[in-house]
């Protein structure tokens, strides 16, 4: 008789605990990701906007509110526009041929093949190599006097090219490095999507006498469009933020200039590198100015990614 209330309360306590466990614990399980993202991803991005409205340096005690002052200085800054041009140029040069090549390679691999695994592993090998290693290796390959690339070009009567010195040549060299690192990776992403396309479509097309190139154009590309859109957007976002390659190329090619200037004439300084120069490599450590540049860069990323999204979605009928 006296134990009954105790048993009830224990049962109730257990059921409360059970409800808590089922209803609430899932939130606890996903919480680490969201907390970390808010603290180290979202907060910095939003706070950048706040910093950009101030005269704010690493060493200053107080920060003076200057409104859009940093932005108007920036829009009149020739170096900023130079970096914007370089970013777009390197972005187009590295991304467009890369994605076309990746689709084609995926198409080649999307058959029963001997050495399938060997080919795939070798395609991804560059992606396992770090940015630093890639640039150090390619700076040597692109060397003016003793580089292997100039040596090969000399067979065709091309004189020694000083790759890091010119605007066009340095953009090409950097694009080659980026392509080398990412083409295989994207080819595997495309291949994954292609494997989900029903085989019968190809069999029917083969019976109708369609060439493999025709099949690629009229079956594969329309069928994997969502993946193409995804890869284009991700590549665009990546291309707009290129920084490590030009930074390291400037140092290891011996082109001269500062650590973050992208060559003595800023011939390959990208936007992200410009931000780094203002914030960390200048004697002023101008956080406010660098944040304003970051924020404009963010807008540029959104705009360019949006345009590419619309274009890729449109491509639809055009190719078929």
């Amino acid at each position, binding site marked *: 008789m006296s134990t009954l209330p105790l048993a009830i309360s224990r049962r109730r306590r257990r059921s409360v605990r059970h409800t808590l*466990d089922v*209803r609430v*614990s*899932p939130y606890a*399980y*996903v919480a*680490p*990701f969201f907390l*970390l993202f808010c*603290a*180290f*991803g979202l*907060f*910095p*991005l939003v*706070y950048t906007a706040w*910093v950009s409205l101030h005269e704010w340096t690493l060493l200053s005690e107080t920060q003076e509110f200057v409104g859009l002052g940093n932005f108007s200085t920036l829009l009149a800054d020739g170096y900023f526009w130079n970096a914007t041009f370089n970013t777009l140029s390197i972005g187009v040069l590295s991304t467009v041929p890369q994605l076309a090549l990746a689709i084609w*390679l995926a198409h*080649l691999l999307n058959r029963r*093949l*001997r050495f399938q*695994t060997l*080919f*795939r*592993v*070798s*395609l*991804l*090998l*560059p992606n*396992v*190599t770090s*940015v*630093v*290693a890639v640039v*150090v*290796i390619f*700076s*040597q*390959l692109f060397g003016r006097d003793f*580089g292997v690339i100039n*040596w090969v070009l000399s067979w065709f009567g091309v004189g020694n090219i000083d790759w890091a010195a010119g605007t066009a040549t340095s953009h090409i060299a950097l694009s080659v490095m980026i392509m080398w690192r990412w083409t*295989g990776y994207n080819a595997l992403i495309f*291949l*994954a999507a292609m494997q*989900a396309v029903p085989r019968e479509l190809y069999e029917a097309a083969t019976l109708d006498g369609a060439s493999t190139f025709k099949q690629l154009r009229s079956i594969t590309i329309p069928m994997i469009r969502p*993946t193409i859109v995804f*890869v284009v957007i*991700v590549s665009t976002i990546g291309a707009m*933020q290129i*920084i490590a390659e030009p930074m*390291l190329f400037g140092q290891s090619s011996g082109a001269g200039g500062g650590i973050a200037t992208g060559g003595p004439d800023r011939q390959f300084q990208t936007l992200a590198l410009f*931000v*780094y120069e203002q*914030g*960390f490599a200048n004697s002023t450590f101008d*956080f406010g100015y660098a*944040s304003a540049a970051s*924020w404009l860069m*963010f807008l540029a990323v959104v705009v360019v990614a949006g345009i590419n999204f619309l274009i890729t979605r449109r491509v639809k009928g055009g190719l078929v």
Partner: protein
Amino acid sequence: MRLRYLTLTAVAFFSAFPLYYSVVVASRHNSALAQVPPPLIPGGNFFANVSRVFDTVPFGLALANSVIVAGSISIAVMFFSTLAGFAFAKLKFRGRNIMLVITVATMMVPAQLGIIPLYMLMVKLEWTGTNYALIVPALVNAFGVFFMTQYLSRALPTELLEAGRVDGCSTWGLFWHVVLPAARPAAAVLGMLTFMSAWNDYFWPLVVLSPDNPTVQVALSTLASGYVNDYVLGLAGTAIGTLPLVAVFALFGKHIIGGIMQGAVKG
């Protein structure tokens, strides 16, 4: 058909050649680089060059830092991603779908643009120059959560979880005794992918660490940015910083590639 093999072989060659050539240069003497034609087979100077690397930068410390950083990040990412993936794939809770969509959308956020406030935050926390600055922000990421969600919703039978419930398992008990063992194959792939990207990370470590307490990549960039262009030194460092990873990749490449392709389907 023959053309297909020829093309793929050519691509495989171009993928591998720069790595091979870096070993060639790393095993030579600087004077050999001035020859025409350039040397195309390795020489006998590799270990002498490697010891020069260790004399020039604190490379032992760099290796230790990289192992600690990449190792802790991988373990944490495997654990937290499996936990969140379990919740998203198998548990019912309000807002689940929208939270999953938000998680995937955060992969598109160009986080590098917040680098200045992130640095200011590290200064406030007094983490600059320490491995905390590298490890803590990377403990879990959207790709890992999405990857494990995909895997668990496909590979973990719901009946198994229901049976566990009937036996009186709490949700945590289910995670520990049922989900973790079942997640092992995918978690291993995720761990390898995470380790590789943490090992190769360059820009953020460069910003928050100092050259006297570097990671491998930061040490390599110091080597490569000397006043004199000592390619042999730079590439010897590159070789010892990269080849272990390439070797691991060559061994487990098949699984890693499978993982990348599975994560990609329905991006």
